[in-house]
């Protein structure tokens, strides 16, 4: 019996979310490394589209539980259902997308099973003593290699974009029902409602040019020259989360996983280190320019042009150069 490598994809509107496909691709990759079989586990409530998508992929098997209790997320139900499924089928590795929802419940599942957890993996390889997973630490400035003890189950969440969705091809996956004792599931919280985080949002998604500032700008009172630069460029002003949390700019200027997703022709990142939460919001930018004091800031890996230096010195010179040549 080959070892089972499970992926638990997330759904969106009854279909597979892009990150869900990436989790399946990651399971496929791990199955290749270990000589195991990649399988999907689908917890859903009448998600016909997702079932059809999974059936048309090249996986060894898919286990599904279709029940009303899975129509909306609660941590207790997800932890309880997956703990039952894992106990019954003993997969070696269980892979999920790294998202706000999975981070809410995956550590609880790890605690319940006393299973090691690798959060936010970006790659995996075979090394001495088993799989070696790589994950970002210290705000993405450094990468750590980690290895799990024991024979499994091992829980892993994979960072968006780390395992391209095309890693799993077309095929014919048999679906079979997952036997669960639904009466034992407790939600753990009572959801009252879902609400919009902000009011009238400025839509940065259509902006052609964006000047974005990070913690490195140093304070609200220092934004004047940045605003002038944005004006000279005909750009919108954006910011990373620390700037918003400090109250230097309003929340509708936030770019990143908890803010807006943008795809401008030019993205000028000033004093932004480029943590993954920020990167997911600006990855679609055509040309990124990064100005940062720290040459090791992850933002430089996303940039086409980079300047190591003090943004307060560079910004007025950029404005002057634009006005001169424009």
């Amino acid at each position, binding site marked *: 019996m080959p070892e089972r490598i499970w992926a638990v994809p997330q759904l969106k509107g009854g279909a597979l979310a892009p990150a869900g496909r990436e989790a399946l691709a990651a399971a496929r990759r791990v199955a290749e490394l270990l000589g195991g079989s990649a399988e999907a586990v689908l917890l859903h409530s009448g998600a016909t589209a997702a079932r059809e998508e999974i059936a048309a992929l090249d996986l060894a098997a898919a286990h599904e539980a279709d029940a009303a209790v899975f129509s909306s997320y609660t941590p207790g139900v997800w932890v309880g259902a997956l703990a039952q499924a894992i106990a019954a089928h003993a997969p070696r590795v269980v892979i999920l997308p790294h998202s706000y929802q999975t981070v809410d419940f995956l*550590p609880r599942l790890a605690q319940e099973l006393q299973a090691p957890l690798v959060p936010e993996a970006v790659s995996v390889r075979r090394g001495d003593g088993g799989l070696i997973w790589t994950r970002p630490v210290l705000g993405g400035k450094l990468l750590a290699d980690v290895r799990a003890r024991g024979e499994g189950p091992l829980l892993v969440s994979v960072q968006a974009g780390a395992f391209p969705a095309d890693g799993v091809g077309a095929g014919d996956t048999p679906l079979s029902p997952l036997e669960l004792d639904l009466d034992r599931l407790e939600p753990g919280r009572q959801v009252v409602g879902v*609400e919009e985080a902000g009011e009238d949002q400025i839509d940065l998604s259509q902006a052609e040019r964006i000047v974005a500032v990070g913690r490195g700008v140093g304070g609200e009172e220092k934004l004047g020259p940045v605003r002038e630069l944005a004006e000279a460029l005909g750009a919108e002003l954006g910011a990373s989360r620390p700037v918003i949390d400090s109250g230097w700019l309003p929340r509708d200027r936030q770019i990143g996983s908890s803010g807006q997703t943008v795809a401008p022709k030019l993205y000028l990142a000033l004093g932004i280190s480029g943590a993954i939460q920020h990167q997911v919001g600006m990855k679609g930018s055509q040309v990124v320019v990064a100005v940062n004091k720290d040459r090791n800031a992850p933002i430089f890996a996303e940039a086409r042009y980079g300047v190591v230096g003090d943004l307060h010195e560079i910004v007025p010179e950029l404005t002057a150069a634009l006005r001169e040549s424009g």
Partner: protein
Amino acid sequence: MKIAVCIKQVPDSEARLRVAADGRWIDEEELPFVINESDQYAVEEALTIAEQTGGEVVVISLGPERVREALRKALAQGASRAVHLSDPAFAGGDALATGRALAAAVRREEADLVLTGSQSSDLGYGATGSVLAGELGWPHAWLVMGVELDAAAGEVVFVREMEAGLNERARMPLPAVIEVQAGINTPRYASLKGIMQAKRKEIAAVGPGDLGLSPDRVGAAGSGLELLAIREPEASGEVEMLEGDAAEVARRLVEKLRTEARVI
């Protein structure tokens, strides 16, 4: 109401980091340390709730001697007591081992509510608070943007951040664990009086034995995850670095954006 706040001391995010000689972690010599960002907001939230309910705040942290400085800061802000999981056996734990140790400390304090940050800026597991909740058998919520007590119902009402600009409002019974997101309040400064008072407040150093834990259940020995090595990410090689004085760099950058990248 007794509130426990679990905080972590982490390297200052502005600090320049160097991989240590053994390649397994960063060189901590002369590195500035601060209270982890989201934990700072957890301390403030705990103090606010304690003021509203007439309760007390106990601050708990795990780590070496330097961690006393972080605990002292929270005491100066208004926490009544501190517990320091200081034994070297606690070091090197993954989320399971560290959550287990912190849960034992919370149990000993008989707290009704635990507040902590959502994620540390160093290891960044985003898991320790939820593991702690699991160890205690309490409900939890991660990435919390707002907290309100419903004392009559014995419940806590919270707003949790979801993806795509949506928030979820939900309630759960006490005792519970709330993991707050950075930015949910405005952390107070310690007053001079607070700083003076903090010098006389207790910081209790505890080891695994004090918490009823065997040393092989905590720290590196009690972990399912081994940290093998850390390294700098490989440069993508695509970035073109512009060097020189600010005026020269600005002029060349504008030219490149105009004629090479054609985006202005």
